[in-house]
């Protein structure tokens, strides 16, 4: 945790100094981020949705959202967008308290979320800077076809790389790019090992609330960097050690060794009441053993690794395979597999008001996963960073009801076995 804080602090310091040092800044989003490529040009990535979620955690989002609404963005607009716009309009002070630089390039490399596109349109208006766009086809049929892959590779080669060359004034350096991709592959191995440690009993990690910290560096600016590689090695060692000691994760209710419920969670967390939300789980002895949110920046546990042997092809594969680019049957398969492989007692959907990429079809997912696993699902509703949509009493009520429902069913099943 300390290591991560240092890394992020150093990155934001560098971003703040960028206008003086001349380092170029590329705004981009988490799903389908091309961090290795951006960094191979010596540019620094900056991720607006990470800033928005950080603003939510630091209780700044309410004011930023109000600011954006004053500018005419309606209540129904994604709150990440409004939070970011509001922040930009009130001094652009980032999550670590430093001023954020203006972008030299807006690189939209994941288009499955149309809000991302509109978001960058607004930022382009604001900053009047070059914009480049990698169109990633949606996995409507559950796979990326060779033609689609080729389509993405061509865009990378013909559009994205030239744009980066122009903005940074550097030539594309494939060796440097490949070196980063090799590091990415090793980081991904370590991350998967950490996430899969949750198959143990007790699980040494919480794969949702704790998980968002574990994915932080690799999903944001550090994939393929030496400090990123160091971070994941250290994390893997720490988690291995906890697993060997039989320790559960650290939670707001202390170390959770006694894990009464093993849950799979679908959907992003709420950020404005993150700790309270987590505590509702940990107070009840609920540990999340697998989550889909920790796959928005890459579905590494399904086998994908960045491959230095085919730098542009692997980048295309990566972009196409992000969780929100998967179709509904693909998402259902993942959840069903998680419930089985992680021996979960239940699965829960946190449906957020802001995000249609996640929320559309979630009830259908719920029913289908219930049918295929025979385990009842739970459903709670909140939002990403708008505190007005986090009703603590209501969410606690639903969560407790759901956990008690699991108990009642277990007791019922035990009774049936008894009777037979």
């Amino acid at each position, binding site marked *: 945790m300390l290591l991560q804080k240092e890394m992020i602090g150093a990155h934001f310091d560098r971003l703040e100094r960028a206008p003086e040092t001349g380092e170029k800044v590329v705004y981009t989003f988490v799903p389908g981020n091309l961090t290795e490529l951006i960094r191979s040009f010596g540019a620094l990535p900056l991720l607006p949705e990470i800033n928005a979620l950080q603003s939510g955690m630091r209780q700044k989002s309410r004011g930023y959202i109000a600011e954006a609404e004053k500018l005419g963005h309606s209540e129904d607009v994604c709150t990440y967008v409004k939070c970011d716009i509001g922040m930009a309009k009130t001094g652009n002070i980032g999550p670590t308290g430093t001023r954020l630089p203006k972008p030299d390039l807006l690189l939209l490399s994941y288009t499955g979320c149309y809000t991302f596109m509109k978001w960058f349109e607004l930022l382009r208006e604001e900053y009047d800077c070059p914009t480049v766009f990698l169109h990633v086809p949606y996995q409507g049929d559950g796979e990326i076809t060779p033609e689609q892959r080729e389509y993405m590779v061509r865009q990378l080669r013909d559009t994205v790389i030239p744009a980066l060359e122009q903005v940074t004034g550097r030539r594309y350096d494939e060796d440097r790019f490949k070196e980063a991709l090799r590091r990415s592959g090793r980081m991904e191995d370590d991350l998967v090992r950490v996430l899969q440690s949750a198959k143990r009993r007790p699980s040494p990690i919480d794969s949702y609330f704790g998980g968002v910290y574990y994915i932080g560096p690799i999903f944001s600016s550090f994939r393929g960097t030496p400090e990123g590689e160091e971070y994941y090695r250290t994390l893997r060692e720490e988690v291995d050690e906890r697993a060997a000691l039989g320790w559960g994760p650290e939670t707001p209710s202390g170390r959770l060794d006694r894990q009464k419920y093993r849950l799979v969670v679908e959907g992003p967390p709420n950020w404005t009441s993150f700790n309270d939300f987590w505590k509702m789980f940990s107070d009840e002895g609920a540990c999340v053993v697998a989550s889909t949110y920790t796959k928005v920046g890459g579905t590494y546990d399904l086998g994908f690794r960045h491959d230095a042997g085919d730098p542009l092809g692997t980048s295309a594969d990566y972009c196409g395979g992000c969780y929100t680019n998967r179709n509904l049957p693909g998402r259902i398969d993942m959840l069903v597999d998680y419930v089985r492989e992680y021996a979960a007692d239940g699965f829960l959907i946190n449906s957020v008001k802001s995000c249609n990429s996640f929320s559309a079809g979630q*009830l259908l997912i719920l*029913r289908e996963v*219930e049918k295929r696993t025979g385990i*009842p*699902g739970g*459903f709670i*509703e909140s939002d990403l960073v708008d505190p007005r*949509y986090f*009703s603590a009493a*209501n969410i606690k*009520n*639903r969560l*407790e*009801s759901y956990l*008690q*429902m699991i108990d*009642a*069913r277990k*007791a*019922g099943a035990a*009774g049936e076995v008894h009777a037979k």
Partner: protein
Amino acid sequence: MNCFLGIDLGSTTTKAVLLAEDGSILGRGITNSRSNYDLAAKVARTEAYVTARFGLLRAEVVRAAGEPVLTHLLLAFRTEQTLRQLERLGVHLLEDLERAIPADRRAAVREAVEHILARLAAEEEAWFADPAREARSDFFRDVAASGYMRIAEQVSEAGGPSFDTLVGLFDKCILKVENEPMELGFQEHIPAALRRIGSPEAVALGVERATNAALEERNGVGTGYGRARLPFPKEQIRSEILCHGLGAHAMFPGTRTVLDIGGQDTKAIQVDGSGIVVSFQMNDRCAAGCGRYLGYIADEMNIGLHELGPLAQSSNRPARINSTCTVFAGAELRERLGLGEKREDILAGLHRAVILRAMSLLARSGGVQDEFTFTGGVAKNQAAVKALVRLIDENYGQRKLNISPESIYTGALGAAIFALRDVRPDVH
């Protein structure tokens, strides 16, 4: 006798159900919820024990003296309870006025308050004694308030202290009466109740047995909106969703889908053949379209809540109203009245809007299966039931609809069954 208690601490009322070891219902109690949650739970519990003891003496008294004597005894008991509460109200009023009223007006206010209290007590005795008495609220707070206001108005019109002065005193003191511990139990008031009906020899034995029957509370489970505030350990607190599901199953064992529309939330619940919840949805982020919505509409139209349903049912052309936002609906109501639409048509439209919102929750929880049980305060409203039946028929086909006259106790009943099963897992 071993018994098991379930308490449902709701936002408007607090309910208690007492079960015997075989799962049969011994007694039920209800009171209005108040700022002191512990006390609300205690009052409801005491009431459940009162009805349980009356249940115990019932057969004996009816056999020895006949049904009218039993009714007479029960009414006498209620009279004693009410007089006891009036007496406490009087003590507070007289104490308070000494502090709150300036010396020059104090004597006049004291005289007025004593007059109101005396009349109230007399009216209460008369009401309980009147075979043709009109139905009214079961809660002391409502009964005392309506009588006090009426008499205070007359007193002040006749040249007494101002109405505001008298009501100001009442408002403060009724809260004190509601939030102070008070003995309203069977043992405390049955002797006086017996004397009130002339201590007939024939009932003495039954009363004595019921008084001395050992009711041993083996376990209790709390549920409802305020459950976290109940004086129970965590293991004895259950979610109202589970309790409603189980309670509905106990009332109607064929139940598979439950809809509960309460004061501030709406729950759509699916249960299995044992009453265990398999899926549920409830209103989120706001309480639009819950029972309180209808309460607000009744206030806006200046009619009683119980008059809403009958009025709406007389409509032939329900208005199309989509908003379940309570405040918007109020505005829409006034606008449509201004345009000359009929009250009953608007009301029918409002009832439909409430039910449409519930339909969405039902759909999201997994639809409406057979049998379907409707609970909560809104289940008493015939216009809401009519709209519900029609929409279910249109969307899911015909379903058997269950509505119990005791549906308000559904959650408390479920809680009591959990309390019983925790100790006796073999009882179903």
